[in-house]
C-alpha cells in the first residue's frame, strides 16, 4: 500500500522520519534543512511519533546527543546542512568510529565562505572520509527511498555504520514533485525493530563507550571500519533489491541511463543527474551516442562496478559539485579516475566542476559538456582535464 502525492523534499524526508519513528531525534535548524526540523516538531507535538525530540543548542550538540542516544540503544536520527555539518565535524567521525547506525539527512548546501545558502556538495564531500555511508538522490522520491533503506543499512550487523542521506538543497528540498509515499506500516515493517547488541542502558551488562584508544589498538579499530564499509556494499545491494521488490523502485550503486551503446558519457550525482537525462534524450534524438551514470552510493565507492559499467566509453566526464582545491579536480573525479588506473581501460576521463553556490546548471550546460566530449573523442586530445562549467571568465 502506498500513495501518490506531491510533496516538497522537506515534507518527504520529515514523513520518512515520521514513518521510521525513531526513538530519539536531536536536531538544530539550518537553511535549507530547517523545514524538516519544523515539520518533524509538529509530528512530535501532535503525538504522531514516539520520538523524544531533543532541541539542542547547536549542531555540535545535535550530533553529540545523537551519538549518546544511539549508544543508549535508541534508533537515533538528526538532519543538517552545510555549516551545520561542519560544526558537527568532530563528532561525525566519532559516530562512525563508535559504529553507531545513525541516519542523517543532509540537505546539501555550499559550505562557507563567503556565506551562501544554495546547493552544492561541498558539505557532504568534505565529510567523505569520515567513515559514514553516503547516498545521493536525484529527486525527493530517491531521498525518501534512501532514508528508509538507510535505517536497515546502518543497523545491519555486518555494517553498523552511520548513513548520510543527501538531498540537494532548495532544488529538491524546496520543490514539490510527484512521488510515492509508502504506507506507514510498510515502512515500519521494512525497517523493523532495532535491537542493538550493546547499549549503555543495559545495566546488567554495563559497557564503556569511547575509551582512549592508543597505539596498540586504534589501528585495529580503524581496520574494522574499512571492513564494515566493504560489507556495506553487499548489504546496500541486497536491501536495494528487497526495496525494489516491495516498491518497484530502486537503484543499487548507480543507475545506468542509455549507457549500453554509449560512446560518450557523464557521471553525475544528485539532482543534476535528472537534468542530464534530458540532455541525453536530446542528443540521442540527434543520433549522438550519449549516456549517463547516476551515482547513488559514493561511500563506500563502487570501484569495480563503475569501471565495468563505463569501460566501453571513449570519453567520460565526471561532474563534481564541489572542488578539492588540489588543482587536479573534484572529489568524485579523483575516485573515478583512480578506479580507471587499475582497470587500464582506454577511457579518457575529464572533470567538470559545476554549480557551486547554487549556480543553475541547465540542460544546455550539460549539452555543452557532451559537445566537448565529442570533440575529445574525435581528436583524441584533452585540452583541459579539469573544467569549470558556467563560471564567468
Amino acid at each position, binding site marked *: 500500500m502506498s500513495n501518490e502525492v506531491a510533496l516538497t523534499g522537506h515534507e518527504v524526508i520529515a514523513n520518512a522520519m515520521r514513518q521510521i519513528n525513531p526513538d530519539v531525534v536531536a536536531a538544530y535548524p539550518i537553511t535549507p534543512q530547517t523545514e524538516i526540523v519544523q515539520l518533524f516538531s509538529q509530528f512530535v507535538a501532535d503525538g504522531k511519533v514516539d520520538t523524544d525530540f531533543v532541541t539542542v543548542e547547536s549542531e555540535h550538540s545535535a550530533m553529540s546527543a545523537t551519538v549518546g542516544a544511539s549508544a543508549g540503544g535508541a534508533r537515533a536520527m538528526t538532519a543538517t546542512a552545510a555549516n551545520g555539518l561542519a560544526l558537527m565535524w568532530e563528532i561525525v567521525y566519532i559516530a562512525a568510529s563508535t559504529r553507531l547506525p545513525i541516519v542523517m539527512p543532509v540537505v546539501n548546501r555550499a559550505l562557507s565562505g563567503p556565506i551562501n545558502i544554495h546547493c552544492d556538495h561541498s558539505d557532504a564531500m568534505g565529510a567523505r572520509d569520515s567513515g559514514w555511508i553516503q547516498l545521493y538522490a536525484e529527486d525527493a522520491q530517491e531521498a525518501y527511498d534512501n532514508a528508509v533503506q538507510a535505517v536497515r543499512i546502518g543497523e545491519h550487523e555486518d555494517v553498523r555504520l552511520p548513513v548520510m542521506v543527501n538531498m540537494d538543497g532548495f532544488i529538491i528540498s*524546496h520543490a514539490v514533485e510527484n512521488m510515492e509515499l509508502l504506507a506507514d506500516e510498510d515502512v515500519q515493517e521494512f525497517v523493523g525493530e532495532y535491537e542493538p547488541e550493546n547499549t549503555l542502558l543495559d545495566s546488567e551488562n554495563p559497557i564503556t563507550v569511547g575509551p582512549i584508544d592508543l597505539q596498540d589498538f586504534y589501528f585495529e579499530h580503524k581496520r574494522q571500519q574499512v571492513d564494515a564499509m566493504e560489507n556495506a556494499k553487499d548489504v546496500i545491494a541486497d536491501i536495494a533489491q528487497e526495496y525494489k521488490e516491495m516498491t518497484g523502485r530502486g537503484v543499487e550503486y548507480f543507475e545506468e541511463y542509455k549507457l549500453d551503446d554509449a560512446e560518450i558519457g557523464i557521471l553525475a550525482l544528485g539532482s543534476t543527474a535528472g537534468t542530464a537525462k534530458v540532455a541525453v534524450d536530446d542528443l540521442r534524438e540527434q543520433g549522438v551516442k550519449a549516456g549517463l551514470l547516476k551515482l547513488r552510493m559514493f561511500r563506500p565507492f563502487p570501484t569495480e562496478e563503475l569501471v565495468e559499467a563505463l569501460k566501453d566509453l571513449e570519453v567520460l566526464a565526471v561532474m563534481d559539485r564541489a572542488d578539492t582545491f588540489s588543482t587536479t579536480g573534484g572529489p568524485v573525479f579523483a575516485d573515478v579516475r583512480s578506479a580507471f588506473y587499475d582497470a587500464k581501460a582506454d577511457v579518457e576521463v575529464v572533470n567538470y566542476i559545476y554549480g557551486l553556490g547554487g549556480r543553475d546548471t541547465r540542460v544546455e550546460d550539460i549539452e555543452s559538456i557532451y559537445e566537448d566530449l565529442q570533440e575529445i573523442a574525435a581528436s583524441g586530445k584533452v585540452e583541459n582535464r579539469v573544467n569549470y562549467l558556467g563560471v564567468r571568465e
Partner: protein
Amino acid sequence: MANLTEIRWHGRGGQGAKTASILLGKVASKTGKNIQAFPEYGPERMGAPVLAFNRISDEELTVHCQVTEPSIVTVLDPTLLEAVDVTEGIPADGKIIINTTKSPTDVKKELDFEGEVYTVDADGISTDEIGAAFPNTPMLGALVKVTDLLEFDNFKEQVEKEFKKKFASKPEVIDGNMKSIERAYQEVKSE
C-alpha cells in the same frame, strides 16, 4: 518534453506566489500530471519581488534547473510591471496573466509584449469574497481558464480538497476562496 508547460509566478513576499505555485502543482498532480513547483530559492522577504515556478507535463519530469523560458507568466501584483521585467524569456506565443483593473490592450502596450495578455481584478475579487486582497487563489482560476492545462470542474474539486486540508482550522474561508476562483475564471479578460 513535447507537452511540457513551464510557468513563472511573479509576486511580492507575503502575497502567496509560492503558495499558488505549490497549490497548482499539488492539484495538477492529483489530476494525473507530473509536476514540479518551486520558489525562487532563497530567503523570502515581505514586500520584495519574488518568483515561483511550475512545470507540468504528461511525461516524467527529471529536469532540475530553473525555469528560464516560461510559456505562461502570472503576475500577482500590478506594481511589479514597473519593478521587474515580467516578460523576460517568454516566447512569442507565450501568455501573461496579470492581476490588474486595466484592460489587456493597455497592459500589452505598456509591456510592449508580442504574446497574449490577460487581466483580472484578483484583488477586487478576493476583497469581495474573502474580505482582503489575497490575489493568489483567484489567479489560479484565471490561469486554468486561459490555459488548457486542467479541466475546470476537476480542478475545483481537487482545490477544494486541498483547502479542506489547508484550512482545517478555519473552514469558513474555504467558500470565499472557492468563489473567488470561480469568479476569476469567469471574469478574466482577453484582448
